[in-house]
């Protein structure tokens, strides 16, 4: 925990899709821990480390918006990709004009979060992988605004801007306690990609993920 970081992310739109309403998308009220993990991994990740989200500060008030987007129905089948890898001649594109579908989304407007997180070393860490090293690389990348791919807020279409918070965490517009219900924590990739949910409780704009999970009794 000594190597915790605090990253401020913000953007015009965000959609942290609820799994039960992911076809006609409806967003959670706040960023999910797995989305926060995705943001951090976009900036810095190596097989030797794994990011753990500690706290999410919700700075802006909740605002929703309703839009419709053109999307497509299908996926490129994995088997086709495999045969392409073997050198066969297959098309790997999709024609948006053929299987277009319009889907509605209820999404968030004008969001701003502060992610408090730390990382742990994984089994893949070698002898030269020290926490100090990775911590400093991460800090440097965040200060400079470097990233592997651009971090986004729930959907790729909603890019996130970010900056490292090195002083005070900005104050939140939320006061008091608020129960946000069950929220996706993350997927347990070790156990057949099982989704894990936790009961999110926001106190004065802060969701203490570790505490919530401890209280809720889920892994």
């Amino acid at each position, binding site marked *: 925990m000594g190597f915790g970081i605090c990253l401020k992310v913000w953007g015009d739109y965000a959609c942290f899709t609820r799994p039960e*309403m*992911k076809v006609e998308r409806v967003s959670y009220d706040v960023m999910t821990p797995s989305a926060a993990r995705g943001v951090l991994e976009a900036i810095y990740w190596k097989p030797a480390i794994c990011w753990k989200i500690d706290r999410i500060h919700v700075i802006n008030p909740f605002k929703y918006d309703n839009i419709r987007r053109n999307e497509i129905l299908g996926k490129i089948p994995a088997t086709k990709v495999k045969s392409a890898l073997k050198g066969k001649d297959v098309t790997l594109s999709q024609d948006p004009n053929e299987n277009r579908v319009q889907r*509605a989304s209820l999404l968030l407007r004008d969001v701003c979060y502060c992610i408090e997180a730390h990382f742990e070393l994984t089994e893949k860490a070698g002898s030269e992988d020290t926490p100090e090293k990775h911590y400093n690389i991460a800090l440097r990348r965040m200060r400079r605004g470097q990233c592997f791919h651009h971090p986004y807020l729930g959907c790729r279409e909603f890019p996130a801007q970010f900056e490292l918070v090195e002083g005070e965490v900005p104050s939140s517009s939320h006061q008091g306690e608020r129960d946000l219900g069950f929220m996706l924590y993350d997927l347990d990739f070790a156990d057949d990609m099982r989704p894990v949910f936790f009961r999110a409780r926001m106190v004065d704009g802060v969701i203490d993920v570790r505490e919530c999970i401890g209280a809720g009794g889920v892994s």
Partner: protein
Amino acid sequence: MIIQALCRYYDILDQDESVKIARPGYSQANVSFALVLSDDGEVTHIVDLRSDDKKPRPQEMDVPLHSPRANGIVPYCTCDNAKYVFGVEKLKVKEFEKKIAKKAKKGGPQEASVLEKNDKEVVLVSPRSRECFEAFKILHHQVFDGVDDAGVRSFLKFLDRWNPASFLNHPKVLQYKDEILDGGNFVFECRGNYLHRNGAVRHAWEDYFSDEADGAQVVAQSLVSGQDEPIARLHQKIKGVVGAQKAGASLVSFNDDAFKSYGKDQSYNAPVGETSMFKYTTALNHLLAHRENRIGIADTTTVFWAETEDRTCEDLARFLMNPREEEADPADDAPEDGAKVRDKKTRKLVEDVLKKVRAGQKINQADIHTDPETNFYILGLSPNNARLAVRFWYMDSFGNFVARVGRHHLDMEIVRSDFSPKYVSISRLLKATLPKGSKDQKSNSNVPKVSPLLGGLVMNAVLKNQPYPIQMYSAVLDRVKVGRSIDSVQAGFIKAYLLRLSRAGGTKLKEDLITVSLNEESPDVPYRLGRLFAVLEKAQNDTNREMKSTINSKYFSSASSTPAVVFPVLLKLAQHHIAKSEWGFKSSQSIEEILSGVDEFPAYLNLEEQGMFMLGYYHQRKAFFQKKEETPVEGA
């Protein structure tokens, strides 16, 4: 969120004795006939349960669960249609030839026996219908073997004895032959009791149902309860959303590859426990089936509910969102039925609440007869093929909701004629953007041509007490310009829009200049110009009533946007009218009075100023007609 709230509402309904809602293992079904069985299992009578209407409608009953069935053979317990109950079906001749006769010719096993045939239809025992009947029989033996009850015994006897081939030989059946085969459902009656309501039957069914549910299932953490429990693979369909498929659409479904993640199939993509699934679908279907909880806003079907058993809440909410339009004469002496009395009470309640909102007081328990802290929800659904999309979702305390919608009605308040509605429903407000008298505006058709986005935006503004969407405002302005007239709904909205905008600081207009009725003191130039236009129009009208083209029809649009171009011409024209008319001196007096506050005609009016222009025009016209009660209102 949505699903959780619906589950909680199911629990409330479940507690409430006065509400008919399906318990787990049961569902509502439309039943057409009851078969009365003797102790020996003979059908002694057939009772028609349908209504006496012109087009008879079946009765809704609480029966053992009718799970979704597509092409497979799935018998239902103690309530099913003729194919399953009698093993007989009716086919059109064409279908019969395609399906059965061809196979028979090819030398396939000819099992179908035709009972009756005419030009159009064939009544027969097909291999499939025979299978259905057998499945029906087997199901009931599974459920009821070992149940010691006279009714059950006679029912099983009936099943064992019944021979589908003898269908038409039965005198009672013959009587209702055609209706029976139309696909309606049957229930059974033994010794004066419905079989499906019999205690022993229910008990046996519930045992069977819960055993069935425990079978090989995926267990995972449910996202509703957070507990590990059996997960529903398919969710029950939601019925009653306007524009959706008739058989119902799903709120949670994954019918295309693009919707799946991490290799999960169907509803395992979103793990919802079986019980939670049952609860939320049943509660939502219940809400959609009840008029008190449902309103249509543009293409969105909206349901709302308060987390309480108390009905006053719903009456009040309904009235606030969708006020009755035919409320013109409150002093009506007609005999009052229950609904009207309730309506009157609600209206009184609304008046009291609005008084409080106007005074800026907090709404308390005594005002709305309910705890203002009760959770209140609004869910807007619109269909997209076999799926439902959530258009908007609102949750807040009931007190806040009432205060906010009350604020909306107060902002919309405007001087009006006796026959226009005092409170305007949201859907009526949306129709203010449509051509007057057009088919779309008049009809209550389910798919009005209002822009689909406006409904959600306006609702949002009302519920959050935010400025109204500019899209709606410009749509109304355009409509007024093109229609060259303005009614109380449009004027009310323009007023409300400007009022909220100035409150939010989005315009230079001062809040106290935007009034309910004519403000002769107002120094606002666009407002004065609007009034001037009304006066000029009247001057013309006083002179000559039978004109085809008036200054209104020619200049309204340009006067409201580019006054400097139009008004000098109009004023010149007016001199002729004034000279001719016996009321001329009055007109020139008003023109003088109004122009005293206008230094020069602005070259151009922006959207807000155009609104003020129209408001001034509307107020001035209303003021003319209020002074002289008898003046007929010409095509305003």
